[in-house]
């Protein structure tokens, strides 16, 4: 009896030991021994050429303190620690000696690269962020118009942590569709493509009196990992129309009959791109379906009539077409395939692509776009007639 009992305990013990032996699951860490990194900035040290890493570490004591201490301008809930090193990992380990604890980067919200790093090429810097197991592939990637560390320093008014503020404002791109969020995984997969240019939001700080505001000014265009140019907000939306990534946003069109503007809000947008090679010419058929609602207008005319809506729909289509063409022209200038047309051709015309890709840079600007836009204004929100004196007796 006792022997059996011993044996059973031994069996259980063996199972338990196997937990550790087979999985290597050791090394629990107390939560307050962590230095939680919420954002990272990568810059280049001009003089030495070393990497200058800024890690934004949370000061947990300040987090819990509610707004009462806001009068004390000095108290910040974050701490930007700098580290220099030959590589990013080197710099990360250097920072450990300043913080006293190992950095914990699982909750990193955004990685911001300085402009000089982006110009040099992200290829060799991004490797660490993709390789390390603690890092999430969904971490946002951003390019600073100047130094990344400046952006990390800009203390937001409502949020306590700049990195969280930045992540938030990038994630709300859908309201305008003037840029879109790019995370590590997306960026890396774009970089792996031979022709497609990768995009990343450009972020900047505006000095306004004594407070600094962070905003996204457009998107940086990368070719072979190096930043080659910049797309402005309208141009970015041109790209997004084609890619079908427009979520919502505002289209301003001139009022069809009177002086003044009509503002539409995009409620739905779909796109379909079919490449075609005809007579040794590449034609991209772009079909866009868009639905919007009339959200604002500053004219007195009643546009909620069938003819009024039809007119507006035509004008809207024209505006969208112009945005797409502007984006295409811009990308032609810097010779980068921001739309990913190359990949589409690759999929459909596998054989021809082998020849095409050799001279893709020359071919790309000659692509003919055939844009077919179908727009629909589905509602006029709460008002049908404008709030003007009604015309008596029609």
């Amino acid at each position: 009896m006792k022997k059996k009992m011993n044996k059973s305990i031994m069996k259980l013990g063996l199972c338990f030991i196997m937990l550790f032996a087979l999985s290597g699951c050791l090394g629990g860490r107390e939560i307050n021994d962590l230095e939680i990194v919420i954002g990272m900035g990568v810059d280049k040290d001009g003089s030495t050429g070393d990497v200058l890493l800024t890690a934004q570490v949370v000061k947990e004591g300040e987090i819990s303190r509610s707004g009462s201490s806001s009068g004390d301008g000095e108290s910040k809930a974050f701490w930007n620690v700098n580290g220099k090193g030959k590589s990013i990992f080197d710099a990360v380990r250097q920072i450990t000696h300043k913080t006293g604890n190992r950095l914990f980067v699982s909750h990193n919200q955004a990685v911001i690269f300085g402009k000089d790093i982006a110009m040099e090429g992200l290829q060799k810097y991004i490797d660490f962020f993709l390789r390390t197991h603690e890092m999430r592939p969904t971490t946002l990637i951003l390019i600073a118009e100047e130094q990344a560390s400046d952006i990390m320093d800009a203390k937001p008014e409502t949020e306590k942590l700049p990195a969280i503020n930045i992540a938030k404002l990038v994630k709300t791109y859908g309201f305008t569709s003037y840029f879109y969020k790019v995370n590590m995984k997306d960026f890396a997969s774009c970089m792996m493509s031979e022709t497609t240019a990768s995009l990343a939001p450009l972020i900047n700080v505006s000095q306004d009196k004594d407070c600094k505001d962070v905003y996204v000014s457009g998107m940086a265009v990368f070719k072979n990992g190096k930043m080659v140019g910049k797309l402005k907000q309208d141009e970015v939306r041109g790209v997004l129309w084609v890619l079908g990534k427009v979520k919502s946003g505002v289209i301003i069109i001139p009022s069809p009959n009177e002086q003044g503007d009509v503002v539409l809000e995009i409620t739905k947008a779909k796109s379909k791109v079919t490449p075609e090679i005809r007579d040794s010419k590449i034609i991209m058929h772009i079909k866009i379906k868009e639905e919007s609602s009339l959200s604002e207008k500053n004219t007195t005319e009643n546009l909620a009539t069938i003819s009024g809506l039809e007119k507006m729909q035509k004008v809207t289509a024209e505006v969208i077409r112009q945005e797409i063409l502007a984006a295409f022209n811009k990308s032609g200038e810097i010779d980068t395939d921001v739309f990913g047309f190359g990949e589409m051709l690759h999929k459909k015309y596998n054989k021809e692509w082998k020849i095409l890709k050799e001279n893709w840079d020359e071919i790309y600007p000659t692509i003919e776009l055939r844009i077919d836009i179908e727009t629909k204004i589905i509602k006029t929100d709460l008002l049908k007639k404008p709030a003007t004196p009604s015309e008596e007796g029609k």
Partner: protein
Amino acid sequence: MALLRKTLKEYLFFTEPDKPDDFVLEEGKDEGNESCNDAVKDGSGEKREKTEKVRKSKGVIKKLFTPEREDTACYGYDSNADNSEKNESDVKKESKDPESIKRKTSISKDVARNLEYMRKVYNVPLNGDVVIREFEIAFKDKTIPAFSIFFDGLVDRMLVNESILKPLMLLSNIEIKGKEDDIADYVQKHILPQSQMLLEESYEKVIFGINYGCCAIFIDGVDKVFVADAKGWEHRGIERPNAELVIQGPQEGFGEILRINTALIRKILKDEKLIVEDILIGERSKTPCSMLYIKDIVNDSLVQEVRRRLKGVKIDHLIDSGELEQLIEDSTYLPTPQVIYTERPDRVSRYLANGRIAIIVSGSPFALVVPATMWNLFHATEDEYVRFPYANLLRVVRLFAIFLTLLLPGIYIAITNYHHEMIPTDLLLAIEASREKVPFPSVFELLIMEVSFELIREAGIRIPGPIGPTLGIVGALILGQAAVSANIVSPILIIIVAVTGIGSFAIPNFSLAYSFRLQRFAYIALGATAGFLGISFGLFIMFLWIAKAKSFGVPVLVPYGPTTADVNKGNIFRNPTWKQNRRPDDLNVKSKNSQQEISRQWKINEEEN
């Protein structure tokens, strides 16, 4: 070391699994009976074989944790007669004890000898509450000496005075048209107006009767004793159940009196097929127990098995059904209970109607119902009484409560120590901020709070009534608040412990709640040593263990463990009442349907009209 090598070998090489269990509830009502009869006929050789089989046939996990109770296992197949024979032989072996011989001796005709003997047995006058009343019966022309003996307090004194002593002493003088010359016949037929009166011939039975609240009357010249039922002890009335309150449904609970309890069930079921089988348990205490079942529903082999186990219990004193539960359950070390423990007659009745067996112990307001599956423990009485969507809401809440009680502290420890990346960023920051000034590791912190919560709970039960709620408030509010402001624990931890505690109260079966309270500490340890991996290891072991377990031949996880025909029939979620046509399939009952296929006949009538 050799043991270790052997264990390793066992893991690496396949071995034929043993026969799983000694009793499996099979389908078919006759098989069980036959096999049992065979066992009895074949006698001892067969019995030895059976014992060996039992020894061999214990499954792995059971083998690990069950102490072998060979005795009960091998005596168990004894039939009734066999059992009493054994008792006699036992008695003979103990023949050095003079008492036991005398008990077997027959009653003398001489009342003086009887009186002397009874005095000796009851240690009069050492024993204060024994009342021996000597008197004389006037019969025809002569007077006959007699005495009555009973325990003061156990009998109804008015009853003894009015309908035993008074008729014997006074009314026997009255001329009654009786032709009997025999005084025993005369007394039985004309004088004692008692509904329950026995004529006993052995001291043993007389003494048992007296111990159980009867009044024994010895009459000179008669070698038999009148044992009149005059039980009149004080007892608690029928009250509302304390542990299993419902809002909607019957409000009666069991009391301590066996007959009242069985009557409560009979009152609900009103079924002549309801059998109340009496069994005495306890060598000395002779506690009367009743085994209840509905004869034409229940599986016969299940009845045999329960009877076998009850008769195989050999202890001196049985006080409460909780003790009996521990003596008849399948596995002592299984973390979950295998018997339903309830104080509600309506609940017992429902289980009886489903083909289960109830055991009521005299002196205990809790009835045992077997066999029990995990789901029975998880169901509450009220589930069947409230409308079905509400019942399902309650069940979801209860499942959630089980999850919280069992795993929440363990998961908290695992996450905060190993899986920081799983918490949403804001929550992580909040937890970190709240733990900033706490000097202890989080496991220690959690254990402090869990232990003090258990302290409050235990003290709350022990503390005298009026102070109880005060303690709760002092303990929960002030202690928690003070612990937080003293930076001993973090506020988030207080929430965890409080939610865990509340969750454990939402589990309907108290025994199951105990089990989860205990296991919670194991999960804290596992979570602290190996994170989620440890917790899943624990869950894996626990489920293996439970999946193996059987309660009276019925697998505990049925109908999901082994899948049965009614796998989707209201175990986790309840079906509407009109759909509950069949009794649980795992009980292999004699009549499968509990209501007509279309239980709402008015629906058809409506269409016809």
